[in-house]
């Protein structure tokens, strides 16, 4: 129990620490923004950590899948808004429908890309870390360049559905709307992953595979099928993360995935390679501290995440929830 209590105590302590410097109302606004950012990073990091845990593959192409997700969602948003006006419409139902349509399209494309990547790019180099890193990096260059060719190289403005714009005013605290949506989506995704891993047969095999892939094969399961499945699921989550991030930041850029990948790496290291709960905690820690520090000392915002990562590596080298793997 103490093993779990310690990181929890650290997290709660860090959560409350900025109250000493920030007035409570601003603090709450920042907290919501930080939670939302953390949830979006979690969408990227969870896939990365599962892929690493199960297949021992460090997937540098995860950032490019994020960018692709953002651009596919961007196209769906633009098309449906131009044809049917679903984003500009004040109807909450139509806005939600638009978001669902974009999520479906994004995840479908991301799954397809993920399966292709795993089958063509990653499968020939299983077990060779260096070539995995190099080849997924090559895939990243190609995928980002394809975005630049298809959608153009410059930043573009992402239309935000009408209902997700603006804010609520709850007892003088400004609560932006979209971050709440992002937090809900992130929490749902976490619940879904936790449920699948803990309660289903597939989840059982994946968890066992994280412990020992050879044993799974010896017991007669085709582990490569699970590799493809987990890779595709991770890709879908990265794509979803990209779409949500595009709405959150109201823009799309071909290089957006690369920056998120660095955040995701930091989160995965903090949380412990292979642990989904660890990456949730790590992502929230990174999202929150980034927002607090960006408010207090704008120029130190990136540095604080590096500092947390270095601290964790020194104190607990295998991460908050990392096993001995």
């Amino acid at each position, binding site marked *: 129990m103490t093993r779990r209590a310690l990181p929890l105590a650290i997290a709660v302590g860090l959560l409350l620490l900025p109250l000493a410097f920030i007035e409570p109302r601003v603090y709450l606004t920042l907290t919501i923004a930080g939670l939302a950012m953390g949830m979006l990073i979690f969408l990227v990091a969870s896939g990365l950590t599962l892929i690493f845990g199960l297949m021992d593959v460090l997937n540098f192409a995860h950032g490019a899948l994020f960018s692709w997700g953002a651009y596919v969602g961007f196209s769906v948003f633009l098309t449906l808004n131009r044809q049917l006006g679903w984003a500009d419409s004040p109807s909450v139902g139509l806005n939600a429908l638009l978001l669902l349509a974009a999520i479906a399209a994004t995840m479908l494309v991301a799954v397809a890309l993920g399966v292709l990547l795993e089958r063509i790019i990653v499968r020939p180099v299983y077990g060779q870390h260096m070539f995995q890193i*190099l080849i997924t990096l090559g895939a990243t260059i190609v995928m980002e*360049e394809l975005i*630049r060719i298809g959608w153009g190289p410059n930043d573009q403005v992402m239309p935000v559905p009408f209902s997700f714009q603006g804010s609520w005013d709850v007892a003088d605290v400004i609560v932006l709307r979209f971050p709440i949506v992002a937090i809900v989506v992130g929490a749902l995704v976490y619940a879904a992953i936790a449920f699948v891993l803990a309660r289903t047969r597939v989840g059982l095999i994946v968890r066992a595979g994280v412990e020992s892939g050879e044993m799974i094969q010896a017991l007669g399961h085709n582990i490569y099928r699970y590799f493809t499945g987990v890779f595709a699921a991770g890709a879908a989550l990265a794509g979803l993360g990209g779409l949500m991030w595009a709405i959150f930041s109201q823009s799309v850029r071909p290089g957006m995935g*690369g920056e998120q990948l*660095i955040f995701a*790496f*930091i989160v995965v290291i903090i949380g412990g390679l292979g642990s989904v709960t660890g990456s949730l905690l790590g992502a929230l820690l990174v999202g929150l501290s980034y927002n607090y520090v960006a408010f207090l000392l704008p120029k130190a915002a*990136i540095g604080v995440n590096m500092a947390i990562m270095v601290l964790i590596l020194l104190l607990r*080298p295998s991460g908050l929830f990392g096993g001995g793997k």
Partner: protein
Amino acid sequence: MKPTPVQEARGAEAARRWRRPAPWVRVALLAAFAAAPLVPSFQVVDLALKIAIFAALVASYDVLIGYTGIVSFGHAMFFGFGAYGVALAVGRLGAPTYGHLALGFTAAVCVSGVVAIAVGAFSLRVKAIFFAMITLAFAEFALILAVQASAFTGGEDGISPKFPGVLGSRTVTYYVVLAVAVALFFLMSRFVHSPLGRVLQAIRDNELRAEALGFRTFVFQSVASAFGSVVATILGGCYAMWVGYVNPESTLGIHIMLDILLMVIIGGIGTLYGGLIGAAFLLTAQTILPGLRAAGASLFPGSEWVQRLTERWPLYFGVLFILVVFFFPRGVIGTVRERAARRRGARA
């Protein structure tokens, strides 16, 4: 006194050395680089020295990736440290003197050594694969720092320092930088063939075995990382001396890192000399490609898609990158050496 068998073997090896083509190729290359300033076109001279700098830079990266088996994404950062160290010391400390130049190099080398050891201590102690992730994060951090601390570093605009004394002359600078690059190359060759280099290769081939033999693998890996990074730093300083201009994009950015990776892969991982082939290929291609693009655009006027496809030449480098890793993982030099070894084996 009669020579011992070992001395005899060494003598025979030394006599044989000059009968092989490899040393003559080296002499010819050196002569070609030394003669390059005689070419009246500045573009050619510039290209030649950049090839020399990048060949040494890629070789210093090869010490890590090819001889130690650790993948770093921070190599461009160390190159940038050198470039910024020299540019800041010469450009920002009043009138440029040789003292400032030496100070710039020394400070940059110290910073790089400390950062490389620290990053190694954080990551290699835990897991070699962390090294790739953490160096990437550090490199991004350094890039943001260089852009944001604009009062000090000049931000996106960078710094263009004036160099002291004889270094104002292009030709003198050319030979100074070339000499440094060649010396560093020689040093790296000694490094990877030293007993220390052997241990590094043992770690690369089987980390567990090396550990079981009693080597503290992460100490050796950290030493290699520090060595490669310091060499990259010195080359960064040389680059600043030659180009006379330093900005985040051209020295610290991620695409310098991608260029280094592509060069090392094309030339051959774990060959040292591969860097020369990779650098020559990629830098020449990057010099020629804009002209080709213009030619391509004039062949198909008005076609937006052709224009878009020719404009994005990094795409083709990315495809090349994947293809080389798949079908040609030993690179040019590695493949040539493999063929030669096979032929020797068939003859024997």
